[in-house]
């Protein structure tokens, strides 16, 4: 659904920006893992594509608010970063396949790299509400790029932090710390969000431990509603056939082992409808 939301508060979170927007319709329908798309540049903008943003927090005050977290990457997100309280934003959402939750209480490790950590907090709340044990592994290039360390420490059983420059926590990447966290917590499942390369490595670790892993991908999108076909990644379906699926509509949450991370950015030769006709006879 489309909501013209009023910005309630804006804040800097280290290297990132967070906007709280009054959007009751979106807050009401939200499930952890959902995202929203935002029009940028105002009414007569020259920027025609929407920006897909992850939701960090949903609250019930003012009828329902969502907090969006993003980093400035170009003119669109720079415009968003300039929004002030009482400005309005054109939001559409919530979209996508949310994180599936375990039926019974389980031990879950939540892995976030950069601002990908943002989507893990509503997920952690939902898991805790189901009696799950939650442990965080959060990382980034440097201390100011690790998102949500304080909040993670507050709600999780344990929080492991990593930075590539060693300015906070362990020196290295989240996947360097992940195996020992999985072993120590006797984890039943892993949830992850972050850059594609991190998700690939997290999935590899989880598969080594033979536990399920759910990843939320951050793919560039033009529409967010499933019509533009620009956010596709190769994913193996239940029938074993690889398809180019939309990160916005079939995702953004996928079972990690189903995503062909090595082939992201290409059309695998055996994908359904690949040029040359690897699987042309199927379907």
């Amino acid at each position, binding site marked *: *659904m*489309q909501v013209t939301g009023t910005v309630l508060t804006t804040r800097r979170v280290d290297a990132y920006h967070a906007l709280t927007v009054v959007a009751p319709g979106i807050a009401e329908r939200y499930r952890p893992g959902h995202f929203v798309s935002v*029009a940028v540049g105002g009414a007569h903008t*020259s*920027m*025609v*594509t*929407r920006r897909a943003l992850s939701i960090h927090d949903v609250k019930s005050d003012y009828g329902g608010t969502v907090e969006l977290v993003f980093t400035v990457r*170009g003119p*669109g997100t720079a415009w968003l970063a300039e929004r002030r309280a009482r400005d309005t934003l*054109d939001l*559409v959402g919530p979209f996508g396949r949310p994180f599936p939750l375990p039926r019974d209480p389980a031990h879950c490790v939540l892995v976030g790299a950069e601002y990908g950590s943002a989507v893990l907090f509503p997920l952690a709340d939902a898991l805790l509400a189901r009696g799950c044990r939650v442990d965080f592994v959060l990382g980034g290039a440097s201390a100011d790029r690790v998102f949500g360390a304080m909040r993670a420490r507050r709600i999780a059983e344990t929080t492991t932090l990593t930075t590539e420059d060693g300015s906070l926590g362990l020196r290295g990447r989240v996947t360097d710390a992940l195996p020992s966290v999985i072993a120590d917590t006797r984890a039943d499942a892993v949830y992850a969000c972050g850059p594609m390369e991190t998700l690939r490595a997290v999935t590899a670790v989880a598969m080594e431990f033979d536990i399920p892993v759910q990843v939320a991908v951050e*793919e*560039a999108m*033009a*529409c967010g*509603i*499933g*019509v*533009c*076909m*620009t*956010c*596709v*990644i190769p994913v193996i379906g239940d029938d074993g056939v690889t*398809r*180019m699926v939309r990160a916005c*509509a079939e995702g953004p949450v996928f079972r990690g082992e189903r995503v062909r991370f090595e082939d*992201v*950015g*290409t*059309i695998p030769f055996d*994908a*359904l*409808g*690949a*040029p040359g*006709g690897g*699987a*042309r006879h*199927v*379907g």
Partner: protein
Amino acid sequence: MSVDMRTFLAHVELGNPITTAAGCASSGRELAQFFDLHRLGALTTRSITMAPRAGRPTPRMAETPSGMLNAVGLQGPGIEAFLERELPWLAQRGIKTIVSIGGGTVAEYSELARRLADAPGVTALEVNLSCPNIEDRGRVFAREGSAAAEVIASVRSIMRYDVPVVAKLAPDVADIVAVARACVDAGADALSMINNPLGMAIDTRTLRPSLAAVTGGLSGPAILPLAVRCVWQVHAALPGVPLIGIGGVMTGKDAFQLILAGACAVGVGTALFHDPYACLRIERELEDLLRARGFQRLADAVGLAHRPPGSAPRHLLVDTEESSP
């Protein structure tokens, strides 16, 4: 007083002139979560191909000033799955559907037409001629009148007589009027224009082309003037041929420009990426504009910009005659 927004695509009546542009509404279901698709003049599907197509590698999209480049590569499920799942879904709901088809050879277009000829729910067939011709070193059909005409003649001879065949033309040709004329002579009942002109962007950070496919189709408000020019030229040369004007329409005013240039229907594409409700908003804005200018029927505005300077619009003349005692 409401404006009569009905329009005719050849003999097929549409409730209003706003359609989705091919490839911008996917299978239709995605937009149905936002509004009732019956409120569209017609829904145009993505271009359907014989075999399933995985499309081009990513990145497929790059934002450009007042527009975007895309190189999706006609990703789609193929005609089998389309006839099994997507078309019946639209047909059962009675949504007016313009099916777009794309192929690499005349035979492929013909086979697609054959498969669609007896399928219920095809309001019109749009032939996407901006596909590389495998038999002619990958030159797109729309670039050459004779190649385009060959496709249209074949498709027209196969489709049922009561389903209009629409030829979709590309703007990056030397003479769009010549291609338009060739298509009409080959039997096209209507023309739609414009498909995306080719463009390119380079990422100055990676020092590489922004799109994996290097070049892509440019869409969005940046191409509106190109669309207005093409519709104008073709309407001037072939005033009797119904035209669907497509290209960068974001507002009712943009749609009005295309109508005044000679289009009787207007396709909305990139605007849908920005605003899922764009079609409804544009239809409303267009109706308001027509009413404000004293039009009682959309049909009276079609091609009106072509009248010689100084002559009063006919729809206003009629009004004065009626009001005089």
